[in-house]
């Protein structure tokens, strides 16, 4: 079923009975129906229309979790830290919440993911599944099981997007891959194959596998090729037993490094360590989650498995003290944001959302507000997410005035700042106050 948004005219009809002019799908799969539109026309849908009128084709400040953002790849700015993370070694990035860790992780996933050959590293986003474990003190076996599942999910989607790999593999290699997938996927492999066969594209498969937008590719295989690919895997017999987690993990590594022969090795992208109630503010708890796999980091690097950890800033002192060699300076990075960089975060989003028509709030602000992005960057916590929140609020304050013909005014900025001071997260510690 399609979703719709009801748009209304912007001719100042802000009360009931505003004219219905367009019905069009919404990117959020969200819509309002005529029955309920009376009181909401101006309160919700005209927000989108107002953005359109400004020249923005979508709300570039709406998605605050980088992993959920379908446009992230288009407007993620180049940060110098990317180059320090890329390469054949382990690396850690420390940043406060909202500091860009997940965006960076997605960027690395995406850089690994594009291309049709195995000459790039294979990305495994690894977010410890605390809910599945029911604890935050996992054993090494727990990690192996979760790692194997994370790897299997990406591998299945990788193979589905690139059926030619399967076609060119020797027949003898297929059972090993099939077995590795069947052992470690969260559900029966055949269900995922059925999904591909029935939907005839890979978007639903990506969603069912719970993989983020970094793993969407614009060029899925042709339908008949995809169906042929499914047939090959369906024909193979399913394993009847499931070994221990370590064996499952090692089977996948063998497939990746030996059978498929990923030249760049495997990137293990560890993120989301502060996602449980116990780890949200406690560096000790974060260290405890990591502890079992830290012993493997250096040996893995010898086997071309490179851990790239995206860790909460508050855990850095503890981890550095406890594991000085692993967290030595060459391996450790912190994301620093400056006013120009933060301003660029906003400008880049505007550029993408306007499809290149303009790249600054200056285009829609009164002349007195020239350089508004820099102004806002200096006022927000020096974190991209906070910058986006504050920028969106400025637009919302303008929208609330319903003076659609005026540019952004200083009063909008002042109101947004007042709101932001009250809504600013007070538990986030940021060292590099601008």
């Amino acid at each position, binding site marked *: 079923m399609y979703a719709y948004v009801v748009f209304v005219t912007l001719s100042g009809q802000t009360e009931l009975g505003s004219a219905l002019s367009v019905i069009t799908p919404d990117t959020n799969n969200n819509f309002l129906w005529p029955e309920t539109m009376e009181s909401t026309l101006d309160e919700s849908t005209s927000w989108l229309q107002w953005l359109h009128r400004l020249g923005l084709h979508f709300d570039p400040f709406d998605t605050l979790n980088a992993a959920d953002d379908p446009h992230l790849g288009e407007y993620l700015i180049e940060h110098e830290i990317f180059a320090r993370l890329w390469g054949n070694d382990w690396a850690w990035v420390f940043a406060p919440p909202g500091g860009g860790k997940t965006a960076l992780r997605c960027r690395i996933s995406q850089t690994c993911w594009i291309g049709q050959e195995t000459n790039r590293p294979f990305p495994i986003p690894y977010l410890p599944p*605390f809910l599945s474990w029911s604890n935050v003190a996992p054993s090494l076996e727990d990690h192996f099981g979760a790692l194997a599942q994370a790897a299997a999910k990406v591998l299945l989607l990788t193979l589905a997007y690139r059926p030619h790999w399967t076609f060119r593999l020797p027949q003898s290699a297929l059972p090993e891959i099939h077995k590795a997938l069947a052992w470690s996927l969260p559900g029966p492999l055949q*269900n995922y194959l059925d999904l591909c066969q029935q939907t005839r594209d890979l978007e639903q498969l990506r969603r069912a596998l719970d993989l983020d937008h970094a793993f969407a590719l614009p060029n899925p295989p042709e339908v008949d090729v995809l169906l042929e690919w499914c047939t090959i895997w369906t024909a193979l017999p399913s394993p009847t037993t499931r070994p221990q987690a370590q064996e499952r993990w090692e089977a996948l590594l063998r497939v990746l490094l030996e059978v498929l022969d990923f030249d760049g090795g495997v990137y293990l992208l560890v993120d989301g360590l*502060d996602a449980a109630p116990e780890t949200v503010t406690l560096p000790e708890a974060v260290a405890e989650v990591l502890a079992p796999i830290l012993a493997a980091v250096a040996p893995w690097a010898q086997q071309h498995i490179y851990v790239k950890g995206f860790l909460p800033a508050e855990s850095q002192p503890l981890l550095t003290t406890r594991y000085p060699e692993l967290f030595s300076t060459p391996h450790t990075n912190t994301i620093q944001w400056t006013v120009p960089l933060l301003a660029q975060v906003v400008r880049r989003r505007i550029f993408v959302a306007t499809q290149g028509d303009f790249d600054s709030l200056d285009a829609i602000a009164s002349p007195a507000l020239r350089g508004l992005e820099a102004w806002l960057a200096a006022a927000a916590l020096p974190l991209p997410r906070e910058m986006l929140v504050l920028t969106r609020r400025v637009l919302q304050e303008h929208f*609330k005035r319903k003076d659609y013909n005026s540019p952004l005014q200083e009063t909008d900025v002042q109101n947004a700042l007042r709101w932001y001071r009250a809504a600013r997260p*007070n538990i986030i510690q940021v060292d590099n106050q601008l």
Partner: protein
Amino acid sequence: MAKSTVPTPGLSVFGSLRAEDEPWLHACFTPPPEFEHIIAPRSTIIFGGPGSGKTTLYQRVRAHSLCDGKPYRLLVDWQPAPLNAGEQATIAWVKNQAVHLFDHCVVALSECLARWPELYTAAPAWAQARLAWFIQQYLQGDPKIRLGPLLENTQSGSDLLTQLFSVPAPIILYPDASPEQVIAELTTALSVTGLGGIWVLSDGLEDWSSVDAPSFLRGLGAFLSTLPLFEKAGLVYKLWAPLAFEPELSRAGGLARRRVDSVRLQWTPDELRRLAERRIALALNEPTFDLTHLSQDEDFLPWLEKVGGDAPRAWLDQLGPLVKYFAAHGQKSLETKTWLRLRREYPPKLYLSEDGYRVLVGGRDIDLEELPAKSYEMLHYLYQHAGTVISKADLYYRCYLGLERTPRTGEDLHYVSPKDYEGLIDTSLWRLRRAIEPDPSKPVLLVSKRGRGVVLNVRW
């Protein structure tokens, strides 16, 4: 405002002033300033004081999820449980809550399918398989007991439900799959059924504020700190919570990391005036109404703002008697003496907090910390004897001195001449009036009865 063909509710719009009892509410609904934010597909906690319109918003969010009475997203009423004694707010506890939430999702989905089976029958086979699996896997207890009426009624969907529970569903995920994976499968399947996502709605959190707030808040805080539950496209939470919860919950990981937005329901006098005018217009079956038609006394609107504060319910509570009088007397503006009489007869509701020096008068939450202890005790005494005329002697002896009986003559123990304490009592009453009366010069709450004493008018 467009006139509706549906019979108007008339003056009953000033009845209970509880959104639960107001099926016509959509006809006069006035969105609060952050309404666009509230109905956006993002997880949000809406904080609001008593009477600020939380339940009204909850109902509007529900209404926004329907088209001709048919939902286009799965609405699930659910709230986390409080922690039991000795229980810790851990990830294990949160997982149990997630399982509990899935159970509620199954019930809501079953209710949907019972009524609109085509949501299932028209879905592709892969989506059907996932929905059948989810329903079988995550309903707790015996389906016949949990869903009995749905399975037994004559709706066309009851056959479908019976079939869904009797034919084994394919295994979609293994039993050790994480809740995040379950959510991903469920929302992917729902996205092609016409139910474009899941909205978990939690109204009534207010009830916990007076029962066991600390343990409830610890649990809710842990739930809101479990980020994977708030990072799934297609799963949105809307929670309505009392303002008192805001300091604690704003520290939860999901709020601090912006996975969950927070909105404080705040109304300006202009917005409240618009809200009141729309409701009066509906009551009178008029397209519009201007509050100044009700009374042209220059003190009327300031009084309303003072008494109503920023709470819609308090504004409407004050306006109800005036509108009824207005309607019954040819819709002529109330004379000042009539308005003054009515406001005496219908003073703002007053609640004295049991656990602190606070009193709620109409829409104003008044801090009584500055009040001398004896004045506060006097208010407490009057509150316990609300509606009863209390003599100054009783106030002095029983409340001020804490005696059990009031001495009547000079021969009684503790007796003193009235002139020795009346000044003291009058000063305390003056302080109390300054604190709680909207207009201390014309008291409506703490009213003197000449020669008899004073009475605290409390409407329950």
